[in-house]
């Protein structure tokens, strides 16, 4: 059993960085914990749920996917290769790890996205069994669990009451990370701590069923009243994957960018002629819920929500997708009676 003392996690990060990995870990900076690239001296914090999700390192918020230059009168398109450094994401929450499976499916559903795939191939995910959760966590309602390992190449288990961690490789990539860690991991014995308990808030299958029949339900207007139209939820979400293509050109050079975009904003579906098929926030909030709990299930057989709760934690207007699903579940039960 590979064991590491809790206060030696930076040593593990250093060993992996030394072995050529870009190490991403939950780092505390001031009042908040974020998934960022580890650098010597950074404080790894496995207790708090990071503000951002691990998605950021596979599908960055802005990325160049094309480029062309103008030289004299010659217009020259240039081939842009993905930037995909060998990366290990340490202590990703299980909800972030399982989100990778959905992203894999989306980015390979029809068109094979070389940018995502190159980074995915170069990335090893070592998830962390959750021993802490908060009131916004609802992974158990969407088929996840605090100790789930879906999407992970290895798993860190907190042990001996938080004094140490057990690293358990699950795939070849995971084994390679364990090997690269070298002496940072010791052979030993430790007793894994029990994962935290996360209560089930709703029945996801029933929600999917209800959504199939209730596109026009008056409930949408009710549950979306507080929504103010921003992208806080989508950009914090480990599975949201919508983007906008923008060309930024100067005389000498122009780039084609892939920027995050979100169905929460009115401009997302605004047509050039002025018509907007999603005219109000009720339609946009419906889209968000439908996409995650109905369309993706129909197309890819997978929920678009892993229950991380970030959207609710960060929403400036107190919107919570878990709350909406619970209300849907209740509406369905009421209708059955």
């Amino acid at each position, binding site marked *: 059993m590979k064991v590491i003392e809790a206060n030696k996690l930076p040593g593990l990060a250093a060993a992996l960085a030394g072995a050529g990995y870009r190490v991403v870990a939950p780092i505390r900076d001031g009042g908040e914990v974020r998934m960022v690239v580890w650098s010597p001296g950074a404080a790894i914090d496995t207790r708090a749920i990071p503000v951002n999700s691990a998605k950021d390192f596979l599908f960055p918020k802005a990325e160049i996917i094309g*480029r062309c230059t103008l030289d004299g009168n010659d217009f020259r398109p240039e081939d842009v290769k993905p930037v995909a450094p060998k990366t290990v994401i340490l202590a990703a929450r299980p909800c972030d790890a399982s989100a990778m499976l959905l992203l894999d499916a989306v980015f390979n559903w029809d068109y094979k996205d070389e940018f995502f795939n190159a980074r995915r191939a170069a990335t090893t995910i070592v998830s962390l069994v959750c021993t802490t959760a908060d009131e916004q966590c609802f992974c158990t309602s969407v088929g996840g669990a605090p100790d789930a390992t879906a999407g992970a190449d290895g798993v860190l288990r907190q042990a001996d009451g938080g004094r140490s961690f057990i690293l358990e490789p699950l795939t070849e990539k995971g084994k390679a990370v364990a090997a690269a860690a070298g002496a940072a991991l010791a052979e030993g014995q430790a007793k894994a701590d029990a994962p935290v308990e996360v209560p089930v808030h709703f029945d996801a299958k029933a929600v999917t069923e209800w959504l199939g029949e209730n596109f026009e339900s008056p409930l949408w207007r009710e549950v979306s009243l507080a929504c103010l139209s921003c992208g806080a939820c989508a950009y914090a979400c480990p599975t949201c994957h919508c983007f906008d293509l923008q060309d930024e050109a*100067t*005389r*000498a*050079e122009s780039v084609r*960018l892939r920027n995050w975009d979100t169905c929460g904003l009115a401009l997302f579906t605004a047509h050039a002629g002025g018509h907007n098929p999603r005219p109000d926030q009720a339609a946009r909030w419906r889209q968000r819920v439908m996409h995650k709990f109905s369309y993706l299930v129909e197309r890819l057989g997978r929920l678009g929500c892993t229950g991380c709760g970030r959207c609710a934690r960060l929403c400036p207007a107190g919107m919570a997708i878990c709350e909406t699903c619970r209300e849907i579940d209740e509406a369905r039960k009421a209708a059955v009676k």
Partner: protein
Amino acid sequence: MLKQQFARRFLSICAAGLRTRRADWDRTGLMAETETKKVEATPAVFEPKIVAFVCNWCTYAGADLAGTSRLQYAPNVRIVKLPCTGRIDPLFILKAFEGGADAVLVSGCHPGDCHYTSGNYHARRRWAIFRRLLEFTGIDMRRVFFSWVSAAEGAKFADLINRITADVRAAGPFERTNPARRRLWK
């Protein structure tokens, strides 16, 4: 033989002429100059790029007067003419810095002289506040200039440009510390 030599010489003069014209044309274009990414050699004296947003009725006419009076002034300024200082959106300044300007000048009619009565008064308020914001977010105030130059003040315009150019030359290139700069997408 001579004829051939002459022909070759003539052609090379034409080509040189074309090259110069091309270079001249390039120099007039703000984007061309500010977006050039290859710098062959660092010139001994730093030549700042200054973008001047001026109004059509006073400062542009003042600049014109400087020209028709054959006044010499620093060639470091790229003039962008607008109907009125009231038309100058703060975004224009940001855009100039984004494109790599070392300094920005905004100039229009003296108070009371605005062609549209009050455009310069509106502008004055805007800049009083906006410059504080630029300063607070890290743009050095040695790189933002405001002036009033009337259509009769050709000499003032020439002096202004010379003074600004000297000041910005002393401040050095803004490239490295410019927070608004569009870094080349690498």
